[in-house]
């Protein structure tokens, strides 16, 4: 349980970090290290060089900018969990963060690290895909960006190239006043890897009709998946419509089988949790008076 030897460098700028990454195939990025260090300890990963990006000022901070909240990649999960901007403007992210690992791992683990790790059952990538977030990258040629749908390719696999690293995540902020979220997951113990997770966000008008809706499931396929439930727009999100929409959207769901759960189980649970998440999001929005309070 001791990592193999490696060189450690802590560059002062993001450009320097990218140059180091681009110049060495065996270099890996480390930030919070909450997934990488166990991999090193078990020698499932043996990089020759670790490039520590945790303290880079370019990767810090949470800021609002035209219709989005941009979360710096090195933002620690515990910091995001407590952040008032995230609570107010990206309520789905605030809702799932307590389910990410345990308090001690959230104190070190970063938002960008969870995105770059691309675990199919992880909550933060699920939120990114469900809300249609944009992944901002640092590349040797300067800044770039990519929609989450293109970024997540498979289990622990992303479209990130050599010499690139995640710079920030841009979560869209819904403009509506009455927004609610719902989240459920099934795991062996709280905060363990989810067999299935479902996250939903809805916006209601004053009469309680659905203005916008988003639903995603994690842990089911080889990456987080957004389900198309746009048929619910304009409805009152009654139980029957929700059931019908989720069933229709999950018909083609590509589920995986492993030691923990079969594909059939995952598909069934995804439908059930999807329905529950939408109902919880509806009730959560209905309880929100939305008098410009967001």
């Amino acid at each position, binding site marked *: *349980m*001791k*990592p*193999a*030897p*490696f*060189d*450690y460098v802590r560059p002062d700028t993001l450009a320097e970090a990218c140059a180091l990454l681009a110049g060495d195939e065996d270099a890996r990025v*480390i930030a919070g*290290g*909450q997934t990488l*260090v*166990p991999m*090193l*300890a*078990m020698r499932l990963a043996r990089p020759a060089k*670790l490039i*520590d990006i*945790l303290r880079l000022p370019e990767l810090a901070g949470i800021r609002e900018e035209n219709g989005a909240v941009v979360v710096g990649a090195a933002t620690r999960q*515990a910091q995001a969990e407590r952040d008032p901007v995230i609570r107010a403007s990206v309520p789905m992210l605030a809702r799932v963060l*307590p389910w990410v*690992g*345990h*308090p*001690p*791992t959230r*104190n*070190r683990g970063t938002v960008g690290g969870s995105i770059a790790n691309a675990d199919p059952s992880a909550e933060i990538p699920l939120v990114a895909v469900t809300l249609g977030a944009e992944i901002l990258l640092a590349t040797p040629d300067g800044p770039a960006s990519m929609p989450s749908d293109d970024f997540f390719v498979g289990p622990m696999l992303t479209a990130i190239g050599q010499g690139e690293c995640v710079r920030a995540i841009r979560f869209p902020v819904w403009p509506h006043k009455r927004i609610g979220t719902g989240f459920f997951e099934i795991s062996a113990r*709280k*905060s363990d890897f989810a067999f299935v997770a479902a996250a939903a966000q809805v916006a209601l008008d004053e009469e309680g009709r659905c203005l916008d809706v988003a639903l995603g499931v994690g842990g089911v396929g080889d990456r987080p998946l957004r389900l198309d439930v746009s048929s619910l727009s304009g409805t009152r999100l009654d139980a029957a419509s929700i059931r019908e929409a989720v069933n229709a959207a999950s018909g083609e769901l590509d589920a995986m089988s492993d030691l923990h759960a079969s594909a059939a189980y995952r598909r069934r649970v995804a439908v059930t949790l999807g329905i529950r998440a939408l109902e919880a999001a509806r009730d959560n929005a209905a309880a929100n008076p939305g008098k410009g309070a967001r």
Partner: protein
Amino acid sequence: MKVDLRINGVNRVADVEPRKTLLDVLRENFLLNGTHAGCEHGVCGACTVLVDGEPVRSCLMFAVQADGYEITTIEGLAPAPGELSVIQDAFCETHGLQCGYCTPGMILAAHALLQNTLAPTREDIAEAISGNICRCTGYGQIIEAVQFAADRLRVANTPRPILTEKPVVEAK
């Protein structure tokens, strides 16, 4: 690689390989063996220390990453040699430990919780120690210990009303 650490309020210098975890440096270089080595891959919580007051697994952090932070180990909690902190004492009082392997991690997790939460609920406590595995007592008495410590700290820290009149002593 040379690294400057601040451990329990004291500046210390070590020359370590980058692959050495904070846990190993605490135990081997500084003989702070109260931080226990359990699974060494971030599952059990026995190696919990406080980094800037927040609980962190010292097996998931390399010592070379730890410069510039205030690190607190279990050795840094007691007010004086031979004494116990309120939380440590509460664990003894309520039989919150048996073999003691998980105890330093549990106490540091509880310490961080009680720094920020005056009156934690059972759920708050369960969440705070959710990353720490105990394999002997079960968790009932540990939760009881944290609740007991919280009660004692709360009472100790509550200002009592100042008596303006002398208590009347009835003459016989």
